């Protein structure tokens, strides 16, 4: 039997994440990332959920055990049309990548590209 070593990458569909309540999503993400997984969310979190994730990540940090997360999502697409400005249309959520801070490092990021390095060593 061949054993493969590496990092688990979970690509999570919008359908799966949208079934969860906000706190469930945040708890799920932290639990999975603490296991060393890299998560790619098809549609990311809303801004309040992102803030809650940062808050809960801080509570989970322990020296030499867990130093936090690396999270990258794209800036929101804003509706620049007249109607969009009047009704402040909520911009759609976009792809988000989240992983342990000691294993995922963002190399480059701009409006439409996230380039990251995943390291097997902690």
């Amino acid at each position, binding site marked *: 039997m061949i054993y493969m070593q590496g990092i688990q990458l979970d690509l999570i569909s919008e359908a799966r994440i949208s079934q969860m309540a906000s706190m469930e999503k945040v708890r799920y993400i932290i639990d999975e990332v603490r296991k060393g997984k890299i998560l790619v969310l098809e549609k990311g979190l*809303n*801004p*309040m959920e*992102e*803030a*809650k994730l*940062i*808050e809960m*990540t*801080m*509570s989970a*940090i322990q*020296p030499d055990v867990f*130093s*936090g*997360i*690396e*999270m*990258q*999502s*794209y*800036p*929101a697409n*804003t509706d*620049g049309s007249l109607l969009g400005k009047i009704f*402040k249309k*909520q*911009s759609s959520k976009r792809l988000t990548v989240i992983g342990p*801070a*000691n294993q995922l490092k963002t190399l480059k*990021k*701009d*409006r439409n590209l996230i380039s990251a390095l995943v390291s097997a060593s902690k």
Partner: protein
Amino acid sequence: MNMIKRFKVSFSKIFNKLFKKKGACIGIYGPPNAGKTTLSNRILKDWVGAEETMGSVSHIAHETRHAKRRNAISIETNGHTISLDIVDTPGLATKIDFHDFMEQGMSDSESKKRSKEATEGVIEAVKWLDDLDGVILVMDSTENPYTQVNVTVIGNMEARNLPLLIVANKVDLPEADPAVIKEAFPQHPMVPVSALEGVGMDSFYEALAKQFG
């Protein structure tokens, strides 16, 4: 945000304007070492007095680990006076590793203590988002602006329909490029400043009055 919530926020804004609510509470946010406390100190120096400061500054990240509020700062610009409460918040981050502080020369115990306090500071900064009337988001104009902290703070202000002013700080440094920040977040007003040198502060106060006055 749904229509009812948006209506409530808009109604609250109109009500506050009609009845001249005093001291809108404005949070100064940003990643560590962007210059938030330097900007806070500059505001106090310009409008309160040279002897008062919001906090100490350092090249080591997370120098500010507790939010500090200064009430009723009167700022005069273009013949109008506005009164603001300013909250200087700890730098937002998604990771805090005590080894980073050790690399700056701190001892193991000092680094772990600073790391713990820094995590508490970030939590405090996130909680303050619920109690603000607007945000000044300070970015280091020598750094890539597309950080998660910037994206999250801007997203929160947009979702809450609250005003935001972006400050492109550190324009005194040769590698500063505030145009990149404007290009990244074109939907929000941006002012280039050097809070340390006091460059661009007149434009900053004009923008402040326009956004939060």
